[in-house]
Every structure is written in structure tokens, then in C-alpha cells.
């Protein structure tokens, strides 16, 4: 799977596998629990849960499922909830296009990626054709 740079000071809170639609529901609920445990307000809890739900669905639809790593750590002097979603699917050929509002290669509305980016404080994406896609989002606490 494609790796993003990490920091050895981050602490792992959980690691989850996405294989079925039920996993999407379960893991997004767990993300809310993590956000709550970090004392995020209700709006930020909802933002990060919704953003991750979009990423999980993409992973399920286009990546054949994947892995979700939840961590916490200090990033730019801020306490962050860090969620990394990695799959070994088809990958995204044109990232700029995929990140633009309204672009979909399927039957979606094309708001998943750009919308998720708006809902979090930091958004990183790395993708390679036929290797996979890794997306990381962070929400400050």
C-alpha cells in the first residue's frame, strides 16, 4: 500500500478493515467515538465522521475495500486526530480532476473527495494507477 510520511510520536488508536458495507457503518461510528474521546465538539465530530464515511465508501467502491488506521499526535503544535485510509484498488489517474467538485467516474455526485477535504483541517492524498490510493485526513482538537 502507498505510504504517507508519518511521525514516530503518533499513537495508534485503532486499525480497521473495510470489506463490506456494514464495515463502513461500523468504522464511521468508531471514528465518532475516537473524536468524542478527544473531546471534539459535536460539529467537529460530525465533520470528521462524515469525511471519513466518504473515504470509506470510495475505498469500498473503487478500491475493493482497504485499511483504516486511526492515530493521534501533535501536528504543527496542534493535537490531531489522524485517519489514514489505504486501498490497493485501481488508483486515480488524474488527482486534480478527482478532487474537483462534481467530478465522478461513476454514478456518484462527485462531492466525496472535495467535500471531505472541506470538512477536515488537513487532507493528503497519494494515488498510483493499479497500485492503490491512500488518503489521510486530520482534525485538530
Amino acid at each position, binding site marked *: 500500500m502507498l505510504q504517507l510520511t508519518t511521525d514516530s510520536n503518533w499513537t495508534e488508536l485503532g486499525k480497521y478493515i473495510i470489506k463490506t*458495507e456494514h464495515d463502513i457503518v461500523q468504522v464511521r461510528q468508531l471514528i465518532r467515538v475516537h473524536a468524542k474521546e478527544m473531546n471534539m465538539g459535536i460539529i467537529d465530530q460530525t465533520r470528521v465522521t462524515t469525511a471519513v464515511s466518504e473515504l470509506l465508501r470510495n475505498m469500498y467502491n473503487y478500491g475493493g475495500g482497504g485499511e483504516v488506521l486511526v492515530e493521534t499526535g501533535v501536528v504543527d503544535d496542534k493535537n490531531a486526530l489522524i485517519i489514514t485510509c489505504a486501498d490497493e484498488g485501481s488508483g486515480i489517474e488524474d488527482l486534480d480532476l478527482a478532487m474537483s467538485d462534481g467530478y465522478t467516474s461513476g454514478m456518484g455526485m462527485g462531492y466525496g473527495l472535495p467535500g471531505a477535504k472541506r*470538512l477536515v483541517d488537513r487532507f493528503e492524498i497519494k494515488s498510483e494507477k493499479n497500485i492503490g490510493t491512500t488518503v489521510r485526513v486530520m482534525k485538530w482538537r
Partner: protein
Amino acid sequence: MNIDLHEKRIPIIKIGNFLIVSIQVDMHDKLAIQLQSQILEEIEKTGAKGVLIDISVLEMVDSFIGRMLSGMATMASIMDASVVIVGMQPAVAITLVELGLEMPGVDTALNMEKGMEMLEKRLKDDDYKLY
């Protein structure tokens, strides 16, 4: 009052001209799609003129559920029924806007009572149009 409870996970209740649906679980995609067709079938079967969907329990509406709700509103309007979404949590409403999701054709009301008033008013307005 005519109560029509289904065996499925999410019950649909009919009161007068209206269907009332209360979503009590975080829906996976298939359940959302199933609910959509269940409601449309029920509109067709009963000739209901309005649908109230209570989502006050939902802690999150992502693009999939949003699309399901607005798709249902569009299809219902083709069948001459209006859809009102009731009790959306403020955090959910804010998140939907930031996500960029507009839900065309979807009306919202603060609570069941307000939603019911909205539907009744619309039904009355439609009656006038006939004359």
C-alpha cells in the same frame, strides 16, 4: 388513523394522506436504497400526498444518504407527493452544506408538527389550483 406497519427494519406509518417514516438506525447503503424503494412503493399503493421523514436520530448524513433523500423527493414529486425531512440536527445541516451537497427539492422542518403543517398547507394550495 390507519396504521400500516411493515415487517422491514424501518417502519412506514400512514396517517390520513401522509406517510411517516422515522429513521432510527445509521443506515448502510443497501438499507438506504431499500428504504427509498419501500417509500415509493407505499406512495403508489396508498396514494399518499406527503411523506414526513424524521431523521432526528441520525448523527450523520453523507453524500450517499443525502443523494438517497433528494432522489426520493424528486421521484415522489413525479408521483404527486411532497417530501419533508424533519428534525435534522444542526451539526448534520452544517456538515451537509460544507460537504457541498445541495438537496434540491428537499424541504426541511424543525419537527413533526411543523412538517405536518407544511404538508397540509401544500395540499390545500394544490386544491385551490384545481379551480
